[in-house]
């Protein structure tokens, strides 16, 4: 399953992070994504953060869709 949800990093302790998604706080492992900071949004899959969500790219996609006439 590709089930992955966007989650916000609220605390980092070594290779673990506390993340928040939809009001629920969980632990996520950062072994596959070592370069993150508190406040970053990541995709959470099976207890691991697998990729960062790039805010600029997200906004750019939305901008592109808005500009369709």
């Amino acid at each position, binding site marked *: 399953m590709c089930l992955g949800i966007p989650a916000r990093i609220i605390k980092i302790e070594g290779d673990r992070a506390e993340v928040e998604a939809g009001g629920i706080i969980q632990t996520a492992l950062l072994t596959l*994504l070592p370069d993150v900071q508190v406040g970053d949004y990541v995709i959470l899959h099976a207890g691991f953060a697998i990729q960062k969500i790039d805010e600029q790219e997200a906004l750019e996609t939305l901008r592109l869709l808005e500009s369709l006439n």
Partner: protein
Amino acid sequence: MKWLDEFRKRELAEKLLPKIEELAREPVNIMDVCGTHTVAIFRHGIKDMLPANITLLSGPGCPVCVTPPSEIDKAIVLSRQPGVLLVTFGDMMRVPGNFSRLENERARGAQIKVVYSVQEALNLAMKYPLLKVVFLAIGFETTSPTVASVIMEAYRQNILNLFFLNAHKLIPPAMGALLDSKEINIHGFLCPGHVSTIIGSRPYEFIPQDYGIPCVISGFEPLDILQSIYLLLKQRTEGEAKVEIQYQRCVKPEGNIVAQQVLQEVFEIDGSFWRGLGYIPRSGLKLREKYAHLDVERVFDLDSLLPKEIPQDVREETAGCLCGEILRGTESPPQCPLFATTCTPYHPVGACMVSSEGTCATYYKYHYKVITSPRKRGE
């Protein structure tokens, strides 16, 4: 919820749909190879929004569904061994093997634990040093790096009672096998967004290059899927074929390098059997020699444990099951004689109905017309 709701805005869908209609001048088949895409397409009513010219097909995108019965058999015989704790993702519990299912084994007293993350298998092995903890490792490229990283950790910590029954598969080779079979015309692929966060866009390049078929790496929200369909049609109309990333907020062309390195360190590529598709070369993962002591197939003699024959009653129950055809996209669930009659989510016969992301389970849940209208003979 942030980074979900924004991609569900109705008014943006209403801008995309006329653009899609403009480009859908002839019948096209677009296939997704991700269970999560199949569910999202149904859940958000996307098929009903699209012009009739566009057919959305579901391919072998559910790792639970494509796991062959023989892997379940191995998990079952292991769970019957004294001192073994079998650990698995939840969906595998009801998948049919050749003679039983894990949920039946648990009911008969086997020690089987369902987990959400492979990390829990490591925790259990550390907590119960006298048990042999065996993890049934299923999943595509989104999941296999998580398993690889836990294997590395078990190696580092010299954990001697944790083993892996490895059934990981790779999606791009299956896409190639589908195209080679020529069973259906595929005019474009929706590529799996989260697999692609790991592998990037390069592994799909052979599809436009060797087959001339457009690929778009798509996110999972309705606007992502609609925009991806639009981009596929645009490529087709302009006579182009390339790999495009629609899901740019999460997918980089190079993917996740750390995850790829972890995979490379632990696994090597091997041939693999897929339910419905048969043997596909270089489509699975095998543990490297360095980690052989963690590979349950190299540590246990599974052949001596497996039964020699499939019971007659099991073969009769599954007769008529079209999971194979459904996974290849050549038939759809309503065409299966068992669908919504003897095979339902409450009593699933085939793997496609068991998994929450299986094509049959998704049709059953969302495609209300099939359930409420009487089905004519041969329909």
